[in-house]
């Protein structure tokens, strides 16, 4: 009966943000998933920044793979006009290779960042959407906007990604922040520079076409040791 009571209580608790676990998206790489506390948190906002403008395609690929692994329903990709003009638009035949079905993707082009943020929020609130990617070309987005988007993600359980063309200077309030770049031999570097659930790290990943997932490249050099379970570090 006690077990039943516990279960009822758990059901009554409102999701309190990143603590409770609406689910996570695993990367398929145990080392990283461990650091993230199981995987990338759903119902949260994550930032993925390209190491430099030329690395935007690599960052996009990283975001897309995560989206493909997360997407039970539709994915919405929103970018500013300038971003699409300078860095190219998502190319259907290329998306397929990442496991992201173009049929489940809706793309938006906005003229202003204000529209982009509004559209992201609208999309996050739609229950038929599991992933929203917002590609911001220039400028920092203010804390208030990030907070709003995080809240929208929490309420809906959807995954929100902010894709940036260069590493931002400001402190982040996102659940995780990554800096992704391309490296030789068809690999990517993914550097975790903010992680609410644990320590940071950097990994070199290789895309495995056959398994359709990331694997750690042979020459991986993690910056920090993988996380041991440290519950006191979670935010109350």
């Amino acid at each position, binding site marked *: 009966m006690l077990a039943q009571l516990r279960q009822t209580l758990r059901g009554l608790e409102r999701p309190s943000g990143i603590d409770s676990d609406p689910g996570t998206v695993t990367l398929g790489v145990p080392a990283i998933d461990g650091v993230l506390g199981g995987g990338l948190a759903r119902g949260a906002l994550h930032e993925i920044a390209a190491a430099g403008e*030329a690395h*935007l395609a*690599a960052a996009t690929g990283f975001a897309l793979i995560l989206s493909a692994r997360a997407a039970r329903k*539709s994915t919405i990709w929103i970018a500013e006009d300038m971003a699409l003009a300078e860095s190219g638009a998502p190319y259907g035949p*290329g998306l397929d290779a990442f496991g992201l079905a173009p049929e489940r993707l809706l793309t938006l082009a906005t003229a202003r960042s204000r529209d982009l943020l509004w559209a992201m929020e609208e999309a996050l609130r739609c229950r038929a959407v599991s992933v929203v990617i917002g590609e911001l070309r220039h400028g920092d987005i203010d804390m208030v906007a990030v907070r709003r988007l995080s809240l929208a993600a929490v309420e809906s359980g959807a995954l929100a990604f902010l894709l940036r063309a260069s590493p931002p200077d400001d402190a982040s309030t996102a659940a995780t922040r990554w800096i992704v770049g391309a490296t030789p031999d068809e690999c990517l570097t993914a550097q975790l520079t903010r992680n609410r659930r644990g320590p940071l790290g950097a990994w070199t990943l290789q895309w495995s076409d056959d398994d359709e997932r990331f694997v750690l490249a042979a020459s991986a050099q993690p910056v920090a040791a993988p996380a041991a379970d440290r519950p006191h570090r979670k935010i109350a």
Partner: protein
Amino acid sequence: MLTAVDDAAERLGLSPGLALAQARTMHPGIEALEENAEADAALLKSIADWCLRYTPLVACDTPDGLLLDITGCAHLYGGEDALVADLSGRLERAGLAYRIAIAGTIGTAWAAAHFGKPGSYACGSERQLLSPLPLAALRLDGGTVAALARVGLKHIGDIADLPRAPLTARFGGDLLRQFDRALGSEHEPLNPRLPVAPYVAEQRFPEPIAREEDVLATVARLASRLKIALERRGDGARRIELTLFRTDGALRRIAAGTSRPLRAAEDIRVLFVERLAALADALDPGFGFDMARLSVLVAESAPSEQIGIGGAEDQTELDRLTDRLSARLGVRRVRKLIAPDSHHPELAAAAVPAQVTVADPGWEALRRYRAEAELSPRPLRLLARPEPIEAVAEVPDGPPLRFRWRRALHEVVASDGPERIEGAWWSEHGGPARDYFRVEDKSGLRFWLFRAGLYRDLAQDTAAPSWFLHGMFA
């Protein structure tokens, strides 16, 4: 030469057709403005728009007339006289001179307004009204009128009882056709300026409204009325237009499209919430709107709403999101990807407005094709237009060794290719065949480049083939 004169000038004895110099000699103090046909046409159109409040069937009768079909509409204004009074009032306030005639046929009304006495003429009185009027009142061309005059036929009454065949033989079919139409023996339809919507609901406000909330509440109310009519025919709306009529006669038109046929009033209201939010300038109601009309411009057959089971509900939710985003941002900014059947990279994928119904997006077919043909990988991001780059490559068809793109130099360390894709030879701008290469540079950045044109195809004196960067791989 004078083309038009006002009342005061008329009283002075001036009329159209008089030479300006002569007019000035007679009355040196007159003011002459240059004729501006475009402005006149624009003015006529805006008056035609005002008249939409009386009926959707409004046609311009250039250069200076309008035709309105008010069958069944007059009672909404409290009768024909009240309608005429309303229209006359507006025209007077705008400082325009006018003549208004109501009759059972276009021909009679036109004749009365132009050559007869303005007023309202009951059906059945056409012959009586038309007989004394000159033949020009039948809207015949000048040549025919002159020919008729030469044989002494000047008034409509003169030809009314003449044998028909000789008249047609002598003066052409037009004469009797116009006559028959004026009398009503032959039907003359009115060609409205704007297409008539299949479903319309409207409401007048004794107290003009101006606030956005009130406009939206009106939309909801009108949409509920439309829903009944749509349901009866099993239709749903794909394109809806809200027309707001200001007290001063000006119009505001706001349209919205949908991804699937809609009937629910709330769904329609939500669309207009976004459209109003998206308006660059405010609604600008002036002194208020005294009438609102909601029309379904495009309707489509819609099966009755099914209680959703999982997938269908999600699709509905996604359609609602698409509609809201399209209404706020613009239809072309919200897109879905389709795969047209083309090997040409720019054409192999297209982004179409998400609201457009597409039977088969084509991805399944593309996957099968790519699997069978074992095509090399495609980039993740494709530039809208391939960008020219400076490249150094082995002649004649080797991969690039290094290239400069957007002022940055890239050293190629690995490459894959060529994959030859023929140009669109059937189109003028198809361009030459392209040899595509996947290249990776020293930093690990990966690009999709191509060389346009083959060395052997070039004549001696043309430039070397050019290189382009088309896309980026992750």
